[in-house]
């Protein structure tokens, strides 16, 4: 009894964690008062505390699984419930924790927005759907929350929908996510067709259906059912497609940089820390569905995405776009890590990344916030997100500067930061994995190392541009008016900075194996090579430090660089490898062409048919009109006229004249006579 009630309580608490933000969403939407901020903050804080409680209970303990019968289709029962294991409680704490911080931050950041209530409502809707996503125990529920997450992301990106770019970006994000959602749905359908259930535990558990299914003679066999082997790969790829869209992997990455049109606090919560991690989370949640083929695809896509995004980030000028590409790059790392089987490393990096990327965004938001105020006050027309117009803010905004530095160090993977542990662990695993493979896989770790070095360059380019060199726009005497952001925003930065240090995750600053988080997911199957464990971090850090110095030379000391604006490499980078153009050409143009063809088809064939039909109908009706007029009316008239004639004829007999009657009578009598003679 005791155990049961405990289990029940856990499930209820998890439900409460998810429902609280939803409750606040409904409440804020239904009330017109501007009290949304306090309410949202209190519910999210409560939700965070509850999830923390759950985390402490579940972490490294037995997973809890509570479910209720939801509905029944034919003989198949569908369950809805809560599955709490290490992964989900970690994500839960991550989401609700960062959400609380973003709530606090947003109170100040969004203070003057006229539609604040809507902002809080959307934010809470997102929290509800994200927490629902991580605790759901069935693919169907996950899919529902997946869609909700995408929808709330759409709402938040387009929060300033009267800005054309924002509404376009929201639309783009939504459409690109649709592609992924389609893949997810296909995957669900294949799984359902094979196993007749969508329950996560029975499917992907230790002794689940997937691990007991096997491949023999080209058939994928599970129990009495089987289907061709290829369907397993297709299912895996379909799920991966869903994850790709959500986690902005190539080729579905193009929406994330545009999503930066939303408020910066949103970018930090959704598009850096949590929502984009949903794809990685999904892959981790259903890990056993991926067969080696799909894992290899995952590796290459992740690696390519990481590299491509890093190169693009090198030249971007919009502060948020640099961070967005950095996010894509880091997500690429995580996906690649999952692809090579570095499961725990990937989750580890997801967690640390959530904190330092959130910090990066919030610090950048702080800068933007202040510059925005400045530009409004002085009616300067400059773009307050463009790093080319910034500079020298180090002294004016020390907390933002320090936060950003710490987060950047974590991003680069410098020692004593959380990033050093997680990112280098991924790189080490990559080397180890590549050592066990042959051929083209050998270059993979070097790509990742290169990416990592590029990361160091672009993030410090940003820092040097913003905080060190002199501003090109803002005169030094005016700088006196720029301060650090209000205290509540600063506190958030400080808290997040704390989470970027190694101490939160491991006591030993150089060994990721000592991290409690890494130990929570003992799934790695890669053969360890101790040799890499000190060599790889060394290579990376040396290279990074060199590149940071190089960046310092270029941007602070203003030395010329080889990477000039005119070169084609620069063009490729700043235009984002021309993906927008390619998509525009490949999809938008062709869709437009198709639309035009269909339009012409409509005009010529459909309209033609309709017009022809109309003409034929008209013709028929005119024929029938003629027929009516001439034949039917004619018949009627003829009947009338005939009757008239008969009447007139018989009227002659009724003349009232005696002689006529007599004649008639006689004629009849005579005709009888004649007839009697004739017959």
């Amino acid at each position: 009894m005791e155990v049961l009630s405990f289990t029940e309580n856990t499930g209820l608490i998890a439900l409460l964690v998810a429902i609280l933000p939803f409750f606040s969403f409904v409440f804020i939407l239904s009330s017109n008062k501007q009290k949304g901020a306090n309410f949202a903050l209190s519910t999210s804080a409560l939700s965070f505390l509850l999830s923390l409680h759950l985390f402490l209970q579940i972490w490294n303990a037995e997973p809890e699984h509570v479910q209720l019968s939801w509905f029944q289709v034919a003989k198949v029962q569908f369950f809805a419930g809560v599955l709490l294991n290490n992964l989900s409680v970690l994500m839960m704490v991550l989401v609700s924790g960062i959400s609380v911080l973003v709530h606090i931050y947003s109170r100040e950041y969004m203070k003057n927005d006229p539609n604040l209530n809507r902002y809080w409502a959307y934010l809470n809707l997102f929290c509800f759907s994200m927490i629902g996503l991580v605790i759901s125990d069935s693919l169907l529920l996950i899919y529902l929350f997946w869609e909700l997450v995408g929808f709330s992301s759409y709402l938040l990106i387009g929060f300033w929908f009267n800005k054309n770019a924002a509404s376009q970006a929201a639309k783009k994000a939504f459409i690109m996510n649709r592609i992924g959602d389609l893949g997810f749905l296909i995957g669900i359908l294949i799984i359902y067709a094979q196993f007749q259930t969508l329950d996560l535990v029975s499917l992907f558990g230790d002794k689940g259906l997937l691990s007991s299914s096997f491949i023999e003679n080209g058939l994928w066999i599970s129990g009495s059912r089987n289907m061709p082997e290829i369907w397993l790969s297709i299912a895996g790829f379909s799920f991966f497609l869903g994850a790709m869209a959500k986690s902005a992997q190539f080729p579905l990455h193009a929406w994330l940089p545009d999503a930066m049109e939303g408020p910066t606090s949103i970018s930090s919560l959704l598009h850096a820390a949590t929502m984009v991690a949903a794809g990685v989370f999904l892959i981790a949640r259903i890990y056993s569905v991926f067969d080696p083929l799909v894992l290899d695809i995952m590796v290459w896509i992740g690696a390519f995405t990481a590299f491509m995004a890093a190169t693009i980030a090198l030249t971007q000028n919009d502060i948020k776009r640099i961070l967005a590409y950095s996010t894509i790059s880091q997500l690429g790392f995580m996906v690649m890590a999952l692809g090579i089987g570095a499961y725990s490393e990937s989750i580890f990096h997801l967690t640390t990344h959530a904190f330092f990327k959130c910090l990066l965004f919030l610090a950048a938001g702080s800068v933007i916030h202040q510059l925005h105020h400045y530009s409004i006050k002085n009616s300067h027309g400059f773009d307050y997100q463009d790093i080319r117009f910034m500079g020298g803010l180090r002294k004016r905004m020390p907390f933002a500067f320090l936060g950003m530095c710490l987060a950047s160090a974590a991003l680069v993977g410098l020692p004593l930061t959380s990033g050093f542990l997680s990112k280098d662990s991924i790189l080490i695993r990559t080397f180890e994995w590549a050592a066990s493979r042959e051929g083209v896989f050998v270059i993979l770790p070097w790509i990742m190392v290169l990416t990592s070095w590029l990361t160091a360059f672009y993030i410090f380019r940003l820092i040097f541009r913003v905080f060190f060199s002199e501003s090109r726009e803002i005169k030094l005497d005016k700088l006196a008016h720029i301060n650090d952001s209000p205290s509540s925003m600063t506190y958030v930065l400080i808290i997040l900075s704390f989470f970027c240090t190694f101490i939160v995750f491991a006591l030993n600053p150089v060994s990721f194996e000592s991290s409690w988080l890494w130990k929570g997911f003992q799934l790695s199957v890669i053969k360890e090579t101790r040799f890499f464990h000190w060599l790889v971090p060394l290579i990376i850090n040396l290279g990074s430090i060199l590149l940071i110095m190089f960046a310092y030379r270029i941007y602070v000391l203003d030395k010329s660089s080889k990477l000039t604006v005119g070169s084609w490499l620069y063009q490729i980078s700043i235009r984002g490898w021309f993906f927008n153009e390619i998509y525009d050409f490949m999809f938008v143009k062709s869709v437009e062409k198709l639309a035009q063809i269909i339009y012409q088809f409509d005009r010529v064939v459909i309209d033609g048919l309709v017009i022809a039909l109309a003409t034929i109908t008209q013709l028929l009706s005119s024929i029938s009109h003629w027929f009516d007029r001439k034949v039917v009316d004619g018949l009627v008239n003829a009947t009338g006229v005939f009757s008239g004639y008969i009447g007139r004829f018989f009227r002659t007999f009724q003349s009232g004249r005696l002689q006529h009657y007599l004649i008639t009578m006689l004629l009849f009598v005579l005709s009888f006579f004649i007839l009697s003679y004739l017959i």
Partner: protein
Amino acid sequence: MGQEQILFYFFGASVLISALCVVLMRNLVRSIFLFFVTLFCLAALYLFALADFIALSQVVIYAGGVLVLMLFAFMLSSRELLNSIKPAVSGFKVNHLAGILTSILFLFILFRVIIKTNFNQLMWIQKSIPITSNENTAHQIGIHIMTAYLLPFEILSIFLLMVLIGAAHLARKGGKE
């Protein structure tokens, strides 16, 4: 052909011709006078049927009664009657044609019946005793009236009285109010 036949056909022809003239004549007075001729000739024909009393009464009643009555009728009445009679707007009307056709048809049928019938073969004619020319029919008729035909005779007399009164009443001048 004996004398008798010649006379018979003469009278027969004059009956028909005069009757036609009576009918076709426009002038009413002339036609009434021609009517005399017809009636007299008819009376002559009755003689050939050995009905001398009938011939006599025909002459007396018709020539002496009916015709005088007719002449009186319109001669004693107003002038307008005579005037209106005269013009008799003619024209070969449909009515006219139909009348002619009907009459001719009727004539044909009658002729056909007569021709088809062989009178000498009829039973009652063969059995009968014909009247001979030297008999006194007036005597016979007197006996018949007073015996076999007494009732019709009496009815006829009453009828004649009624006619007399009725005609007198109708012909009363200004006899309405």
